[in-house]
């Protein structure tokens, strides 16, 4: 490592003082309220869904970790299974304009149709506001909110942090576990994990 690199590292450390880090919601906190425009044109307000379980899925159609769950049909299966049980499922698109995964509303509608995806809605978040509220770091990061509006899970979709489609059938799915345990009136055993995948492509992200 060169000295100049080290200096850059220190500058980096000093600079990363985003207040968003400090205010982002944690598991056990009330889920931060947001209002967003969905790709179907409707306006979605989180608090309108109080009384239901809500799943948030951070999405980027160019990320190979997301690709694993869509090419295998795993994400669509989860969306159908859980919305079938009354859960509200929002796919969230936090890529900034010009970055990988940024899509227009009509692009996203085409993608949902092509992939036979079945979220309740796909929410456009090009400013990254919702992503930062929840401190979303990766796609596919997953969040589960209970009917009281409390964040009960945030982290990885499952316990196999790879891009390999063969890992999907043998993985333990943390979202399903959290929903099953919470619906059974139990404590969520694993309420927080490292959310594997590609970094969310916020306007300020460089990697």
């Amino acid at each position, binding site marked *: *490592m*060169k*000295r100049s*690199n*080290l200096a850059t*590292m*220190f*500058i*980096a*450390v*000093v*600079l*990363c*003082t*985003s207040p*968003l*880090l400090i205010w*982002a919601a*944690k*598991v056990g906190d009330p889920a931060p309220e947001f209002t967003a425009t969905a790709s179907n044109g409707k306006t979605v307000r989180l608090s309108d869904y109080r009384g239901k379980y809500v799943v948030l899925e951070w999405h980027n159609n*160019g*990320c*190979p*970790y997301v690709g694993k769950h869509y090419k295998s049909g795993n994400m669509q299966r989860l969306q159908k299974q859980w919305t079938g049980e009354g859960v509200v499922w929002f796919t969230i698109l936090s890529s900034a304009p010009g*970055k*990988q995964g940024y899509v227009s509303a009509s692009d996203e509608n085409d993608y949902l149709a092509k992939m036979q995806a079945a979220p309740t809605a796909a929410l456009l978040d090009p400013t990254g506001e919702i992503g*930062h509220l929840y*401190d979303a*770091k*990766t796609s596919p990061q997953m969040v589960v909110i209970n009917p009281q509006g409390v964040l009960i899970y*945030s*982290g990885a979709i499952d316990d196999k*942090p*790879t*891009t*390999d489609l063969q890992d999907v059938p043998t993985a333990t799915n943390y979202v399903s576990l959290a929903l099953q345990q919470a619906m059974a009136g139990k404590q969520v055993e*694993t*309420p*927080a*994990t*490292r*959310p*594997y*995948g*590609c*970094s*969310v*492509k*916020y306007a*300020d*992200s*460089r*990697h």
Partner: protein
Amino acid sequence: MFVPREMLRIRQKPRTRLQRQKGRAHMGRLVDHAKMPERNLNPEFPRLLIFLLALSLCVVGARAAGTPIPHGTVELIAENQWITSGHTLNLGFRFQMEKGWHIYWINPGDSGEAPKVKWQLPAGLTTGPMEWPTPRRLGATSIVDYGYEDTVMLIVPIHANQNLAASGSTQLTADLRVLVCREVCIPGNAQLSLTLPVKSQPPAPDPSATELFTVVRKSLPRPLPANWKVSLAEDKDSFVLAANLGHQSTQAIFFPLAESQIDNAAPQKLLPTAAGFRLTLRKSDQFVKPIERLQGVLVLSADQSYLIDVPLSKPDGANKNTALKSTRHDK
């Protein structure tokens, strides 16, 4: 006879690479025509032959650059010329990445994934834990990763059994999976093989690999000096790493070995003290179970990085730090 200038240039550039590679020809990877360029520098040589020569050198040059992975190459390099039964041979995965692209450390940080290797080894050979050079922080926003840009070599020790028959040669094959990222991420894989003789003679270094291994060893974190003391305390939101080095330090960065202990993107607050420093590390939001100890790499300057393994001080403050015994960490 007229020789096109371009051809001369093509001949010259790969030659230096070829010479670097020649020392490794005995490893079974190269190359019968390694001596050709010395004989063929005469510009009067027939044009067709020169053209063919240039072409063959291009092939050798491409080989020397390693096996392609997304936006870079990787090469498997042996430190010694042969395998000796009862001894350890170090192999290096040498990554050379295009500008701006990176791969990941053992703990990739907020996103990404560390390289993984599956070995196909003959009976009598086993692998030890990979040795990871000191990483860099990548990104300066709400997402911070740990990894390597440009060139890096990851070392894997291969232990040869006492009873390994010293005759003939043996093939070592590595199936590598690696995630390569800049703004976007591309998973890659490569199969890398080396064929090496097995001998009973003591190991002999491969001169063409010596410098690469010398350089990378300087970038490996070392055990903490015995007279330095590091301790760890915590409050609700943070860990505080306190170091007594016998002198003040105004620089320190900590890289956690385990995921989900510290908040990777949070600023690490450094307070220089008379005999060292105190470094405040924000706990990760993903942090749910109490930890017994914090392991990782402490970087004080460009050429000073240390492995630390510090137990969390109990409220009675009765324990002391221990440095890791070895420069290798396992996971």
